[in-house]
């Protein structure tokens, strides 16, 4: 009886190994199963989801106008002090002083892409872009000013 048990043990063990070997041989011979993405080569076809959170950008239209009123809602919503809004006072055509955006400073190196600023923005001035290749040679290049030079607030946005 001991011998039979012993032989059974040997054969069931070998069988379980053979099952594994069959599975790996299947993958060895079926190259269509390969899932490698050859990243820098597939840049053209690589399509990220339109919700992917890559970095915060400010939307500008063709007249170089944005929708940011400088209300600092995003700055307050940010958990990491990623956003710093510097405001200035513009003179409106009526001659009144009006608070407006001077610089929208965005520290990409501090950002955790939590999307809270986008949710907080009352005028939808900022959104998440799908870029993800953020490597630079100098850390200071990661501090960005999001409003383009010479841009203004779009008329009608309060």
């Amino acid at each position, binding site marked *: 009886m001991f011998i039979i048990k012993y032989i059974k043990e040997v054969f069931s063990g070998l069988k379980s190994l053979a099952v594994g070997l069959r599975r*790996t041989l299947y993958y*060895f011979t079926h190259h269509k199963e390969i899932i490698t993405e050859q990243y820098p080569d597939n840049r053209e076809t690589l399509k990220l989801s339109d919700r992917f959170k890559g970095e915060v950008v400010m939307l500008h239209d063709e007249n170089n106008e944005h929708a940011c009123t400088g209300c600092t809602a995003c700055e307050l919503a940010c958990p990491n002090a990623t956003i710093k809004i510097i405001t200035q006072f513009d003179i409106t055509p009526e001659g009144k002083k009006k608070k407006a955006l001077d610089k929208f400073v965005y520290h990409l190196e501090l950002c955790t892409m939590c999307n809270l600023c986008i949710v907080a923005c009352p005028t939808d001035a900022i959104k998440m872009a799908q870029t993800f290749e953020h490597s630079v040679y100098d850390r200071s290049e990661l501090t960005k000013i999001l409003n383009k030079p010479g841009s203004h607030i779009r008329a009608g946005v309060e």
Partner: protein
Amino acid sequence: MLSFSDISKFIDSWLRDIFNPTWTMVIEMMIAGVCVIGLFAVLGLVLVLMERKVAAWIQIRLGPNRVGPKGMLQSLADTVKLLVKEGMTPDGADKFLFNFAPFIAMMVAMLLMAPIAFAKDFQLWDMNIGVLYFSAISSIMVISILMAGWASNNKYSLMGAMRSGAQIVSYELSAGLSILAIVVLSGSLNLNDIILSQADGWWIFKGHIPVIISFIIFIIAVTAETNRAPFDLAEAESELTAGFHTEYSGMKFALFFLAEYINVFIVCAIGATLFLGGWMPFHIGHWDAFNHVMDYIPSSVWFFGKTFFLIFLIMWFRWTFPRLRIDQLLNLEWRFLLPISMFNILLVTLMAILGWHF
């Protein structure tokens, strides 16, 4: 048809025309040494690339595909990298042993090249105790591992080395016994005689069940002897970081790495010689036409084809199985492999004495 034996005979006669026999001997030895070193380099590169490609395909990846066409030069680039890396010797290490150990590993691998018949009549040293020589020399490998582990002054290294010692000492037994089966059947320790005894059919295809069993045991035992997964306890990177070569870097590490692959090649070459007929072409009984076609394929192609098939087997195991635990490893040897191979050798001996084999 041009073959390796023709080339070697041509060189030999050419040298004999120019020099006296002593100098011929010396020059031929030098040529052989250069050839072995060249074969080493080429085999190292090819086997590393092959391992990486096999691993990649099994793991649904592409594997190396950047350096050179289809990644063929990848291992060359890695070699260059390893050559220019700093070879560090840790503080507190036994400097002499630490630096000496990789060379022992290489020397063992080089010595083992001697009895292998790469093609018909193409052999460095046709000695009459080839099989014994292989068994004897291959066990020296463990000394380099023990030396490396001890000299590193690292607990992981030492544990790896001790594991390796226990492992190789026990698996030598069943490797030796499984080789012995073929020696008994063919009646010779000479590798060339063993090949010639398979002229009408390889041992594995002659229908002897004991031979098949000893072939399986041989493959398991040599996988363990060369420290390859699932028996890579000496390295066991998830337990011992890198085992006995934890502290090695640069070219000294590369020598260990190379020696491992060369050892895989050698044991597979011996396996191919003993069980699959070495350079002997595949023949089927009286199909003369078929046999002629087979004979037309050069003997070196047969040899390397069989060897690389066995190497693939060993690589395939590595990328499929998890690692054994040290006590299970010894259990497998002493509880399963050794009794089975003892019983097996008894069967084979009976067969040989009673003349049941053909």
